[in-house]
């Protein structure tokens, strides 16, 4: 896939593989991200993988757009192997009231019984596409077609951290109390912001995610353990 290169100000290069979201474009982003991680060019500060492109930020005192571009082109010529499958991560989720205020609405919109909505969500094939919006907000692809619903017309305020929310083909586990226009179908005690200095975020981009159903009593126990820890 031949990417397009765009200079961003004095300190970054945006490498874009496609205009539209696709598995192959995201695969190319992950492959380049891995290649640059393994062999970073001099002066590179960080890379930011997104849906169809990768940002490469650099120190303009040390290097420039052309040198970064040349290095990226070298990586693209060298990496033909598919990106790694990603690590599998488990996220626990309680779908019981009061943690699933939009379950009924999703049920009404899709014509599925609430229990079928839950089963369809659990059966999803989730992959971490990118982070954005706020710290630890990992956008997961893979919501089953049967329960894909659009965003609400207006966001709801003060949605608690840990909410499991869906919109279209995407799912996300929130990490902060924030507004959202997505549908809230459950609550998770699993910490995405782990508090572990060596591994502060649960997912890497490209990881696979499986949701595991828990009941309200288990949620209460795990959530308390997390808060105490």
């Amino acid at each position, binding site marked *: 896939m031949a990417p397009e290169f765009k*200079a*961003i*100000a*004095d300190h970054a290069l945006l490498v874009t593989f496609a205009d539209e979201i696709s598995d192959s474009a995201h695969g190319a982003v992950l492959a380049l991200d891995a290649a640059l991680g393994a062999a970073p060019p001099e002066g590179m500060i960080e890379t930011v993988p997104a849906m169809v*492109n990768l940002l490469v930020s650099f120190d303009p005192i040390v290097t420039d757009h052309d040198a970064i571009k040349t290095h990226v082109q070298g990586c693209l010529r060298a990496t033909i192997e598919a990106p790694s499958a990603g690590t599998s991560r488990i996220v626990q989720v309680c779908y019981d009231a009061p943690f699933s205020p939009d379950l009924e609405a999703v049920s009404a919109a899709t014509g599925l019984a609430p229990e079928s909505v839950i089963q369809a969500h659990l059966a999803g094939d989730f992959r971490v596409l990118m982070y*954005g919006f706020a710290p630890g907000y990992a956008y997961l692809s893979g919501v089953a077609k049967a329960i894909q619903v659009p965003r609400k017309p207006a966001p709801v305020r003060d949605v608690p951290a840990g909410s499991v929310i869906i919109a279209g083909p995407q799912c996300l586990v929130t990490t902060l109390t924030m507004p959202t226009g997505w549908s809230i179908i459950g609550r998770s005690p699993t910490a995405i912001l782990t508090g572990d*200095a060596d591994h502060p975020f649960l997912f890497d981009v490209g990881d696979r995610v499986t949701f595991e159903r828990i009941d309200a009593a288990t949620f209460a126990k795990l959530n308390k353990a997390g808060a105490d820890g």
Partner: protein
Amino acid sequence: MAEAAFTVAFAGPLVTVQDAGRPGHMRFGVPASGAMDRLAFDAANAALGNESGQTGIEISLGGLILQCTQGPVTVAIAGGDFTVQLGSQKTRSWTVLTVQKGERLSITAGKAGSWAYLAVAGRIMAPEWLGRQATHSTSGFGGGALQTGQTITLSDASLREDRLGDIRKPDFQASGPIRVVTGPQDQHFAKETVARFLSDSFTVSDAYDRMGMRLKGPELPLAGALSIPSEPIVRGSVQVSGDGVPTVLLADHQTTGGYPKIATVISPDIDRLAQYRAGQSLRCVEITSAQAVAEARSYALGKADYLAEVSVARGTLAQRLMRENLNHGCVFD
């Protein structure tokens, strides 16, 4: 080593603990944060002889009033043109002074500028997140926002009498229009829209915080699809929302977003842009990415020279009086 302590008698909104920021976590949704005006922040630390990036306090137009409950300690205040009052002594930002136990230090909005920095001869005790004390304002992670009534404790507090007095303001920064490189999503705008963005004047709106600065001016309509895939954002990205209004993303920016970015402010112009206030007008001018790199390098050299000069101690009181006598050609008796 000595401790010093302040009670926060008053803190306006968005008065936060900041340091040089935490680069390297954008892939996890975490922007670098750190001081909005990095030059003024660095100058305040340099004026005390602190190491670069030492934690200080960023003061918004809301202002900050501190009551010293344990001291003394020497502090530096830089950035904008804020009003500074220590006891009955009234001065302005760009100054180094010593605060004694029982004294009240107030730093409030003055004639110009949106942000001032308080650096201290000591270490501010505040929470870290991902190894840094910089506050990410939307989450509150890091050192945090100061709250009226709280206590700020400094360890290793010291007196630095050889550093008292005015801090020379930087004069190497560019003035005039804010320099931008167009893109990276300028293809989502008609040519005339990009031309209008580069020729018309915009006003800073009230919607200005650590995440970004919304501008008022001519509408910048998006050509075609609004729903582009979410793409990475940097500090300085000028994002245009569906209603055609541009916002310059700043220290606590989102790391990705689905609105197209018409242009990106070059890093040497972000500190001076951050000091604009609501109601002030500005214009943008286009430069090439190669020129932007050259400007970033010359800015870095200018900044290094400036900070090196500011970080030189002025000497003891006797030495300073002697030097000033010589300079002014009069005799001290």
